[in-house]
């Protein structure tokens, strides 16, 4: 039976993290994410976990990797400019394979931009922000119930693949109260994954030797006998720096492959009225909610519209997008930015259908009637 409760978006994220087993949070205040830190400051000590507010965003990301290496499920939350500051240590976390979750509650940018208003301008930064090559899972829920589900899923994949996972929210989602069915989050309903532990005796232990799943079993620091080294330099199975070209290429290949190979399992979308759709909308987060209403409004007017709401933003649902492009006459990508995910949609569409944009970066959300107007324009053959 459903157990409906009203939850504040950012608080729901914190509560779900606790359910997922998060026991370490390091953060730095930034609008519109601060309520996640505030809730964690209240909850973690009661659950025997660590909360610390660090001196800056960079420090928060560093402490998170420290907590993760100690064996605790670790997390931080931030927004645009803070996410930029975290990039160096996010790259480090990817390189040393420290499981952790980074929440980015998107606001309007660039720079200080529109700190109290929503944006979807981190779509590209969430994947490409750090230096060097990287592939990490990026999830973007669309309502408060899903914030809880995706927070738990983010922790699960972070632990299973030993990788940072980015959870994108936006100001509307973070600062909104919405009904959540808490019956879905009882211990018997929630699946929790934990990172694997080494299954060899200490003398045979090589922290960075991957298993068949491409994931190494690094023991938490402090585990007797299982001492090890981690470095941001290219490294061999012992974790020690190497410049051997074969070893270096193998490392980067594996780091990317371990996420890329899981794309089918990671993929998560919501499909709405796509079966007979002629115009498909591809979007995510708050904008997808306006799009869903717009689909209904368009159908009332006799236009066959449908929606693909992407939840796993990266790695992108390449094949699904390609198939979609083959099955419709046009695709529309509305985003609260000046055009980001549209590039990925265009790439995956491979020319099978024209891809249209609806962009905005002024702090205002896109309303259903605006998407409807664009759909009508496309249906009439305009742009």
């Amino acid at each position, binding site marked *: 039976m*459903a157990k*409906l*409760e*009203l939850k504040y978006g950012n608080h729901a994220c914190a509560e779900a993290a606790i359910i997922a087993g998060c026991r370490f949070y390091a953060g730095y205040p930034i609008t519109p994410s601060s309520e996640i830190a505030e809730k964690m400051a209240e909850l973690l000590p009661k659950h025997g976990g660590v909360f610390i507010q660090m001196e800056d965003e960079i420090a928060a990301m560093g402490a998170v990797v420290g907590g993760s290496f100690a064996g605790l499920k670790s997390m931080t939350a931030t927004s645009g400019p803070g996410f930029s500051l975290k990039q160096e240590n996010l790259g480090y976390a990817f390189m040393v394979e420290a499981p952790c979750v980074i929440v980015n509650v998107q606001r309007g940018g660039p720079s200080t931009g529109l*700190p*109290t*208003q929503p944006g979807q301008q981190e779509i590209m930064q969430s994947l490409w922000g750090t230096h060097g090559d990287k592939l990490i899972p990026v999830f973007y829920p669309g*309502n408060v*119930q899903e914030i809880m589900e995706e927070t738990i899923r983010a922790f699960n994949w972070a632990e299973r693949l030993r990788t940072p996972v980015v959870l994108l929210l936006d100001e*509307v989602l973070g*600062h*909104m*109260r*919405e*009904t959540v069915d808490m019956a879905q989050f009882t211990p018997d309903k929630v699946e929790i994954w934990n990172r694997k532990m080494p299954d060899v005796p200490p003398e045979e232990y090589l922290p960075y030797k991957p298993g068949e799943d491409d994931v190494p079993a690094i023991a938490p620091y402090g585990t007797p006998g299982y001492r090890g080294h981690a470095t941001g330099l290219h490294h061999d199975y012992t974790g020690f720096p190497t410049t051997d070209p074969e070893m270096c290429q193998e490392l980067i290949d594996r780091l990317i492959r371990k996420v890329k190979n899981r794309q089918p399992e990671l993929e998560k979308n919501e499909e709405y009225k796509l079966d007979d759709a002629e115009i498909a909308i591809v979007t995510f987060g*708050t904008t997808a*909610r*306006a799009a*869903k*209403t717009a689909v*209904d409004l368009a159908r009332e007017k006799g236009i066959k519209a449908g929606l693909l709401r992407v939840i796993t933003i990266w790695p992108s649902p390449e094949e699904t997008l390609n198939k979609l492009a083959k099955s419709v006459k046009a695709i529309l990508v509305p985003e609260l930015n000046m055009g980001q995910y549209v590039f990925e949609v265009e790439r995956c569409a491979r020319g099978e259908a024209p891809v249209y944009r609806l962009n905005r970066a*002024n*702090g*205002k*959300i896109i*309303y*259903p*009637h605006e998407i409807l107007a664009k759909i009508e324009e496309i249906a009439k053959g305009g742009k």
Partner: protein
Amino acid sequence: MRYEVRVIGSAGQGSILAAVVLATAAAEEGLWATQTATYGAAMRSGVSLGDVVISDKPIDFPKTTELDAVIIQSQEAYDDMIKGKPVRLDPECSEADADVLVNVKPGALVIVDEDLVQCDLNCNMYRVVSAPIARTAAEVLGRRQVMNIVALGVFQVATTLQFEGKPLISEESFLKAIEKSVPARFIDLNRNAFMEGVKIGKEALQKA
């Protein structure tokens, strides 16, 4: 069913808290709800508002677009809301104001404080319910601050005008929501405030 409510008043009148209590009550009633507020520069100075969308199924678009009810707590808010430029009633309203100024549906409930708001609305277009909300808070409960919760009581009763004699949300759900939303030491005061609101709400409906 999609039902949109706005609570609007001068800053400090607890409009957002009232919206939170209302959304919580909807959840208690087994309905889905979203509650949003407008922050920062988008807000007009001095006016504060909380929006609630209620539905019998999960909600797609979480913000308000066409109000089924509006609770107006001050003249300033009234001027903004009704005499101002609701987006689709006045073509001169700029797109930028769309977050704050939304359409009020014909037949919508308009709940106003009879002492604080001079209401000259066309009663054929809206269901106007005028009650001594702030006065009841000050004189009966001794705390003017609880006028927002008194207003919710009036709203609870007034929704019977829209749902064939039944309220949208029961008294019990509101009382439970109050318990969940206000600090423990203020629960009794706020429950009483709500019940006084119900009382003056009923009187206002009889008068009308």
